[in-house]
């Protein structure tokens, strides 16, 4: 089990593939990329040691084509496959197929992936580990009387959830005894009509939940380390937008209990490699187990910033059968880190995804700034994959320095071409409730409207002047070279020497 993984194939694309390639390069391992047809010029291909095609644009035909990916891995003699996140990262069958092909899958065992992939089994593991779950019925409730019994133990507000529902559908909040009967009838009726399944669960309703997760790392000796929590409450439709560590909601005592709970869940299922135990927090900062993500998370860099660890490097160690680099004592987290996901979407138009060519690109630099990007200048953002372009990560000695540094860094970042959410993050980081650490998954709902991003007076003044000067310069150009007027105006749209004399 302790052979050196010299040739590592990264079965992913975009920023996470680039992230993994970097650690491989630092450790002198051969990094092997795969790419779909439109990704031939993607950054992860350019930055790899080797790169091989796996099929056409749609993921199903390339990055999610298991036979093809494994065929390439075998042909190029990969010792191991790192799945990144998404694609095959939590796919039991893929992990099993790797093992059968004699290729190390960098992640937990297929059995762990399967057990934690089933939400009910995961929940049961948490219960066995003595970790709190959201109070509620453990199965469907059959009669109004039963619901009434639960309402006494759980208290109001509670939620009725259709067993077959999901994504916000088939749910109803009940706030008092008086509402209970009619709500019960309506939820059952609607569930039956909408899903052909009228089974309904009861659960405590958390009005303004926070999303906080535990980064864990486990090796084959049974050692499970807790590397601090991450707060990912700022979300839109379950997509995380900005993450940070530590959580402003935690004190040292809560953090300790939280870390121990996460480790108990991991030990209960014999977890190995890096993983994330997700919890939600209620208004009193009590935490309840949600699920386990059996992979590296998008937001893992904030943990790296405060611990100094390289989580990919730790995954590689564990995959080689070695122990964690820090033995039994993980580094004490230092300072505060935040990550803003830079996404190709237009926050002023309902966050509609965007694509297109990156015309100009300047990253933020200087103290405490890390960029994990999957793009470069001139790169055409393809429409086939998710719209995460880059992650802007900052570190500060405390939360306020991190937040101010994030604002500074966002101001430095220039990304012309696709629409993106840099201005959204500027709004967010400048918001007094965000600055105060008052977060919940309803933050956007409560505070954000497209008007939030309306240009300031200063921005409008600047825009008016810049546009007028641009036009003024053009008119000077026209005066200098009238022959061009009839031609292609846009191609000829250049600053003239005469215009510069205006300085």
């Amino acid at each position, binding site marked *: 089990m302790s052979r050196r993984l010299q040739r590592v194939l990264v079965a992913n694309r975009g920023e996470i593939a680039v992230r993994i390639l970097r650690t491989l390069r630092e450790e002198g391992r051969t990094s092997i990329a795969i790419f779909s047809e439109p990704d031939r010029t993607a950054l992860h291909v350019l930055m790899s040691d080797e790169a091989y095609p796996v099929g056409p644009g749609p993921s199903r035909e390339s990055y999610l084509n298991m036979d093809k990916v494994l065929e390439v891995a075998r042909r190029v003699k990969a010792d191991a496959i790192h799945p990144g996140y998404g694609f095959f990262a939590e796919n039991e069958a893929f992990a099993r197929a790797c093992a059968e092909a004699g290729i190390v899958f960098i992640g937990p065992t297929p059995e762990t992936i399967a057990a934690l992939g089933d939400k009910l089994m995961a929940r049961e593991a948490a219960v066995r580990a003595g970790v709190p779950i959201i109070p509620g019925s453990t199965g469907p409730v059959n009669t109004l009387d039963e619901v009434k019994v639960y309402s006494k133990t759980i208290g109001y507000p509670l939620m009725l959830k259709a067993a077959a529902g999901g994504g916000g559908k088939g749910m109803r909040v009940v706030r008092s005894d008086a509402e209970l009967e009619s709500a019960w009838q309506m939820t059952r009726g609607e569930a039956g009509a909408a899903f052909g399944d009228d089974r309904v669960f009861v659960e405590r309703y958390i009005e303004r939940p926070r999303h906080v997760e535990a980064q864990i790392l486990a090796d084959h000796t049974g050692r499970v380390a807790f590397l601090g929590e991450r707060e990912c409450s700022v979300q839109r439709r379950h997509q995380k937008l900005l993450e940070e560590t530590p959580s402003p909601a935690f004190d040292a005592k809560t953090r300790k209990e939280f870390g121990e709970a996460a480790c108990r869940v991991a030990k209960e299922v014999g977890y190995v490699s890096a993983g994330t135990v997700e919890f939600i927090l209620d208004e009193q900062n009590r935490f309840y187990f949600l699920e386990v993500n059996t992979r590296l998370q998008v937001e893992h860099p904030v943990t790296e910033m405060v611990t100094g660890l390289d989580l990919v490097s730790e995954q590689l160690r564990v995959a080689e059968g070695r122990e964690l680099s820090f033995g039994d004592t993980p580094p004490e987290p230092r300072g505060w880190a935040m990550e803003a996901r830079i996404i*190709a979407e237009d926050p002023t138009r*309902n966050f*509609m*995804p*965007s*694509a*297109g060519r990156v*015309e*100009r690109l300047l990253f933020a630099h200087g103290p405490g700034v890390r960029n994990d990007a999957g793009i470069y200048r001139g790169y055409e953002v393809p*429409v*086939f*994959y*998710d*719209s995460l372009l880059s992650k802007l990560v900052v570190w500060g000695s405390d939360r306020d320095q991190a937040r101010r540094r994030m604002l500074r860094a*966002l*101001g430095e*970042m*220039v990304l*012309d071409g696709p*629409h993106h959410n*840099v*201005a959204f993050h*500027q709004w967010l980081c400048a918001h007094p409730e965000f600055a105060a650490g008052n977060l919940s998954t309803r933050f956007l709902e409560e505070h954000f409207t497209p008007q939030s*991003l309306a*240009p*300031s007076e200063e*921005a*409008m*003044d*600047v*825009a*008016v*002047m*810049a*546009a*007028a*000067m*641009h*036009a*003024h*310069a053009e*008119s000077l150009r026209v005066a200098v070279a009238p022959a061009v007027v009839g031609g292609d105006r*846009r191609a000829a*749209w250049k*600053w003239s020497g005469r215009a*510069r004399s*205006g*300085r």
Partner: protein
Amino acid sequence: MKVWVTMAGRDAEVTFRTEGGQLMVEYGGKEFHADVVKLPDGEVYSLLVNGRSYEVRVAQEQGALGVTWSGTAMSVEVKHPLEKMLQQVAGAKRHRGETIMAPMPGAVVTIRVQVGDSVVPGQSVLVLEAMKMQNELAAQTAGVVREILVAEKAAVSAGTPLVKIAPHAEEA
């Protein structure tokens, strides 16, 4: 020299003159000393306005200038004296309906309107699936659906016209 600028529904007049080799700009009742240089990196200007430093991108867009500063994208119309006069002559005859186009390649999931339907600004007319997301495409203007140019499930590329909306007047 004067230009007329329209932005976010507001009109403004900007006057330029040179004074001792320096560019002076009059705008909104105030006068600024301005220094402007084009940077050697795209359509980007460095402005020093009374000493304040701004890096601004100005790109030609359809019918307007797209101005980006500090992550905020704005659209500005600039008219030269002649254009301004022509516009005043032409009067208010401007609302010509719109054609809703696919902002990116994708697949049409749902068409929410039929020919003849009245629509109001902001009303969703079509759902386009692209980049793993369902996107509501809305009308910008009030009017009547005159033509639907695609069918549900159709794959469309960026810029494909999808739905034509005519102003109410034309229908009456």
